[in-house]
């Protein structure tokens, strides 16, 4: 009996401790980034050492991973870990100090708004690449070009057959992204110019690979993909007569593109700054960035602010 009583007491105590620990992490109390300050910085040409943790956008992950590999080869004292999780996760974690870098497809202000707006203000944006998105269809749809208005009508359900836009007599099947997706936000903002609601019967897929597979296989399918995913299994559609090519994006003629952001909470420390600087060197911008199908941020002849205003550089 004695034993049982003390056992229950112990259980109750541990539960309380565990619960309060949970409460803490809810408020984002812990600050892992603080421990990641460089341990050694003596004089000029010093070896960098420290660790960097990045998380967020899966669209940006391959690029950061590949750049991190070569950065770690050059700086053996630095350890960089890159995790996925999605743009929202990356922004939350960097704002709460759980990671050093938050990767995102969208401006932090678009995700962290209302009550979280001050969190977004504390984040520093580093734009490392550009991703352009093209409208694509099943090859049998028989259409090469769609105007902005036609796209809006298709994605709002006003046009339901390809014959209405000069294609085959085939019902249109929308393959969409979930409404919280950064790719969809980019497509809606710059290709459609309006937010769309999900339509009954439309399909939503999370990964670009699945979207491509479904568009290639489903008769009458339409969707949108990053340029790096395009191949012969799907038909790339011109937008208002402009071909979605790297050159057209760089010159600013093709408007459906977004920056890939790497956010830090306040100004980055020495190691993180060195890595972010490395991301913007020609070696990465003209090497890894191009190789993985992104467009170098440095090559862009136009720039765009958080409100979508485009200016010539």
């Amino acid at each position, binding site marked *: 009996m004695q034993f049982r009583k003390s*056992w229950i007491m*112990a*259980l109750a105590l*541990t*539960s309380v401790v*565990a*619960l309060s*620990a*949970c409460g803490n992490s*809810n408020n*984002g109390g812990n600050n892992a980034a603080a421990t990641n300050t460089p341990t050694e910085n003596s004089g000029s040409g010093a070896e960098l050492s420290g660790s960097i943790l990045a998380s967020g956008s*899966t669209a940006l992950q391959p690029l950061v991973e590949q750049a991190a590999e070569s950065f770690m080869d050059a700086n053996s004292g630095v350890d960089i870990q890159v995790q*996925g*999780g*999605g*743009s*929202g*996760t990356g*922004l*939350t974690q960097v*704002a*709460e100090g759980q990671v050093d870098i938050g990767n995102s497809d969208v401006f932090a202000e678009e*995700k*962290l708004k209302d*009550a*979280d707006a001050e969190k977004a203000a504390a984040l520093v944006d580093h734009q490392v690449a550009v991703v352009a998105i093209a409208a694509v269809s099943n090859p049998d749809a028989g259409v090469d070009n769609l105007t902005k208005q036609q796209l809006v009508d298709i994605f709002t359900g006003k046009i339901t057959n390809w014959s209405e836009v000069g294609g085959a007599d085939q019902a249109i*099947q929308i393959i969409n992204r*979930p*409404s*919280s*997706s*950064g790719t969809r*936000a980019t497509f809606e903002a710059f290709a459609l110019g309006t*937010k769309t*609601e*999900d*339509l*009954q*019967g*439309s*399909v*939503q*897929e*999370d990964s670009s690979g*699945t979207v491509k*597979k*479904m568009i290639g*296989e*489903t008769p009458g399918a339409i969707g949108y993909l990053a340029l790096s995913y395009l191949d012969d299994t799907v038909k790339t559609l011109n937008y208002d007569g402009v071909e979605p090519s790297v050159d057209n994006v760089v010159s600013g003629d093709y408007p459906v593109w977004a920056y890939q952001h790497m956010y830090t909470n306040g100004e980055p420390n020495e190691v993180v700054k060195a890595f972010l600087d490395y991301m913007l060197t020609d070696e990465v911008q003209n090497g890894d960035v191009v190789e993985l199908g992104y467009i170098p941020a440095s090559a862009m002849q136009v720039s765009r602010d958080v409100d979508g205003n485009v200016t010539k550089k």
Partner: protein
Amino acid sequence: MRGKTNTKKIEKHHIEDMVGRIYMSLCVLLLIVIIVSMVYFVASKGIANFISGEVKLTDFLFGTKWAPEADTPSYGALPFISGSFLVTLLAALIASPLSICAALFMTEIVPGWGKKLLQPVIELLSGIPSVVYGFVGLSVIVPFLRDTFPGQGIGVAAGALVLSVMILPTITSVAADALASLPQNLKESSFALGATRWQTISRVILPTTMPAIMTGVVLGMARAFGEALAVQMVIGNAPFVPRSLFESASTLTSVITLSMGNTTMGSTINNALWSMALVLMLMTFVFVLLVRMLERRNKI
């Protein structure tokens, strides 16, 4: 007497006993702490929207419109709740007869090679990762349904078919265990009374083992209810209550995996996803309760 044992030297096996007991108590304690804190975490996140008044509970449970990013957002989860129940029930309906027949085949019809052949095959099914099921579903079942029925192939029917294969092993192994544990004399008495094999199976064996077989069905349904990846790949994920079995629909798990990474912690949409996780967890409790009730009835 008492004083005598106390003064005695503590022997080795007593220490072993103590160490074992403390170690096991610690393990159980840790387990309970993990479970309690998980339930607390999901529950506290899940009810955050309702406490802050951001979303009304009735709007959440019975609202049919899910438009979290719209200018006037609405967080109706009925499409997901109904989708989850639809695919789960359909999958159980498809898988149960198959599994029960397989179990009968292994234990009653050909206990020798039937069991030797079927058992490993069915155990293999439960070892296949769900992403593989999803991919096979997307590459085989969806095109098949698209060519055979109106619609695009994706939808509740495709999800239920994939799930039914996934829960086959659960139901079959539980049912086979139940059938094997049936006392031999029950069957022998039935045969002695002149009943045929079919009469014995349908009038004696199945009625007696039904609660145990139903346990397997409920366990299978619990697995189907919680499965995310494979279903997400074939169901289409449109946030609507489907008008037919061949129209894009969503489940609780699919919308959570689809949207969780894109949302920021603490936002209304994120908390709405946690509310769905809470619904999932509560349903799991219901399934566990059902299993306990069935086990109590199971008195072979």
